[in-house]
């Protein structure tokens, strides 16, 4: 009788195999619902008029060039180059107007890139 009771108790405790603690970590991304898709208006003024006047050279008697349409820093309009070329162009065009810290950082970066491109590595 007592042996039956102990067997039953061990059986019942064996059935209750669920841990009361967890051995893993939870995900840092917590989402309680499927996130809503972002609503993008494909026909805003900017999107519908994108690219207009890009052919102003060929359709407009070559008085203007598409690179005149680019808005941006003065040393980057109609120019493409690697970092060293961009920085030296910036120093030439805008360097005397720059603030002291920015100018100092620019010069440090130029000298670092010059040494890296021309002295180390396979391509020098």
């Amino acid at each position, binding site marked *: 009788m007592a042996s039956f009771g102990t067997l039953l108790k061990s059986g019942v405790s064996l059935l209750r195999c669920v841990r009361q603690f967890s051995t893993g970590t939870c995900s840092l991304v917590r989402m309680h619902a499927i996130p809503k898709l972002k609503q993008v208006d494909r*026909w*805003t003024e900017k*999107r*519908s*008029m*994108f*690219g*207009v*006047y*890009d*052919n*102003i*050279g*060929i*359709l*407009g*008697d*070559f*008085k203007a*060039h*598409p*690179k005149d*349409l*680019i808005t*941006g*820093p003065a040393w*980057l*309009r*109609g*120019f*493409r180059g690697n*970092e060293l070329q*961009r*920085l030296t162009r910036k120093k030439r065009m805008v360097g005397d107007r720059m603030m002291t810290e920015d100018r100092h*950082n620019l010069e*440090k*970066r130029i000298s*670092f890139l010059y040494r890296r491109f021309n002295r180390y590595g396979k391509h020098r």
Partner: protein
Amino acid sequence: MFRATLTVCGGGIAKRLFSSFSGESALPSNLRLPPNLIGVPREKRAFPASTDLPVLRRCEADIPAHLAPVQTWLQSLESRHSEPLGVVDLHPDVFSVPVRLDILHAVEVWQRNFKRISYAKVKSRAEVSGGGRKPWKQKGSGRARHGSIRSPIWRGGGVAHGPRGPTSYYYMLPMKVRVQGLKIALTSKLAQDYLHIVDSLEIPTPDPHYLQDLAKHRQWGDSVLIVDVGEEFPQNILQATESLKTINIIPAIGLNVHSMLKHESLVLTLEAVKFLEKKLLWHDTRFTPLYPFKLPYSDLP
């Protein structure tokens, strides 16, 4: 209304095939349409048969002997139900060129990228404030050796290979490639029945609903791009398109491949067609430039 006929564009790979039986839809048999498709399939209007209709406009430029001009209807914006006024000729070297999708793709990608300037910039270890002093001595402290607290392996340190400064993605495709892209876009619009020639842009009311109604009734598609030459447009159409998002009007100088691909159908006036033909055909027979074209040439206007 119109009996569909078999028509082939002269001289080009772009061909239009219509079923030769009236009332049958011209969709291919292996087309799978999604079950939730909304909208009526567009009925293709019969292309003008080149037999007895008077041609209202001939091409100014000479057409090569082995090519025939492409023909299309001339419509009017006067009223919703107005019938086409007649037939116009279009130059085959502009409106019926072989459709090179790779050139179209290249021009579209160029338009997206040549203006792009990316302003992403992160500070390198030299630019982050601080980090000039060696944090602890080289030997004896038991910790790893370090030279500055702003090196890239430190939290709060600079980024080693991050984006550096405003970067420009500017490049130019050869002029003839861009010109060919325009011609191919015009050819595709015509071949897919999305090109409409209009005599002038006079509309009876400045009401935007009138234009929307017109576009819907004539099955022009969801978005319409209207192109005309010159700086002045009729006030009515300017007011009508001002408030509409998907119907836009641009001068002919502003025509470009991206806008043509974005808007579903293209509406050109006769003057715009003449202007485009003149500008785009010149590149077929020009000399290579000895100096940029913006400097004066004796024979260029």
